[in-house]
């Protein structure tokens, strides 16, 4: 009899409490969601004494705390993962930009070519090989001052063959090809980048 009395008191008190809370709820879209939660609470209050009849004493606090700590754990884990991803992304971006700057500086010191663009393909996922350079696409163009000087220079024919008949070909791209080779070997030494993985494109002046 005592249990039924307590049960009725609990239900009535909760309904009074909920009525009071409903006055406090602001008139917004959230009202519907709060009503759902309040409905769940009333169901818990009505049903919990039945469980005491069926199963004896069951501690619900522990389960609620377990559920809320699981939510907190998952939230923190997701945040940490997202921070870690952002951190890695920032490191890769910074590394790429520093590497590009360094390559640009080296190319411009090594040759009379101006760097238009450098596209690098590097390892971004695996931690063990993070930052390893796979491929480099380099776009260059002749510096303006040099082209002006070159206009005045006559093409030179060099006699390097014994046979006079095939010795009259003009070769214009020897200088550029040498530059490419020099840059490639330099990159192989400094960045451990195989020559085949460096593609150099030189834009022609208009």
């Amino acid at each position, binding site marked *: 009899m005592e249990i039924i009395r*307590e049960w009725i*008191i*609990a239900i009535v*008190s*909760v309904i009074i*409490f*909920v009525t*009071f*809370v409903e006055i*406090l*709820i*602001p008139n*917004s*879209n*959230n*009202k519907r*969601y*709060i009503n*759902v*939660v*309040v409905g*769940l*609470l009333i*169901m*818990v*209050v009505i*049903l*919990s004494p*039945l*469980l005491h009849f*069926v*199963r004896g004493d*069951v501690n*619900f*606090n522990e*389960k*609620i*705390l377990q*559920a*809320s700590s699981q*939510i907190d754990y998952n939230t923190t884990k997701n945040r940490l993962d997202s921070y870690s991803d952002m951190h890695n992304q920032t490191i890769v971006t910074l590394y790429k930009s520093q590497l590009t700057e360094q390559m640009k500086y080296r190319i411009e010191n090594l040759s009379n070519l101006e760097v238009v663009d450098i596209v690098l393909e590097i390892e971004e996922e695996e931690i063990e090989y993070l930052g390893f350079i796979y491929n480099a696409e380099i776009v260059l163009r002749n510096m303006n001052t040099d082209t002006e000087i070159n206009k005045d220079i006559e093409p030179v024919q060099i006699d390097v063959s014994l046979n006079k008949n095939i010795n009259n070909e003009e070769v214009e791209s020897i200088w550029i090809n040498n530059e490419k080779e020099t840059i490639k070997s330099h990159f192989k030494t400094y960045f451990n980048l195989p020559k085949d993985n460096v593609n150099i494109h030189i834009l022609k002046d208009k």
Partner: protein
Amino acid sequence: MEIFQIVAIGLIATFLSVLIRNEKPEIGIYIGLVTGVIIFIFIVTKLQAVITILNQLANTINIDDIYLSTILKIVGIAYIAEFGAQVCRDAGEGVIASKIEFAGKILIMVMAVPILVSLMDLIINIVP
């Protein structure tokens, strides 16, 4: 009575806002924002007192404290989200206001999950 003070603050702010609106509409927005904050601070102490009494009432009922404290937390979240959304809406930022309301909804649902889990557990245990 506090209601006179609150209404007086509201009326003065409205009067100033209407006066300034044609000259400098952005100051009208600031007046609205500041008035909202003042009224909210004014009333939040009273609300705090009511919530304390509700908490005491909840402690006398033979129900786990965690349920009622969750409900009170949800009411708090709803109030703060509503206040933030209204301030943004007054400033003409309806998109930000709806985002605040969305965040409020999600947080309310997160708070409700333990109660839902508990109810499910209860039902599963009752059914033989």
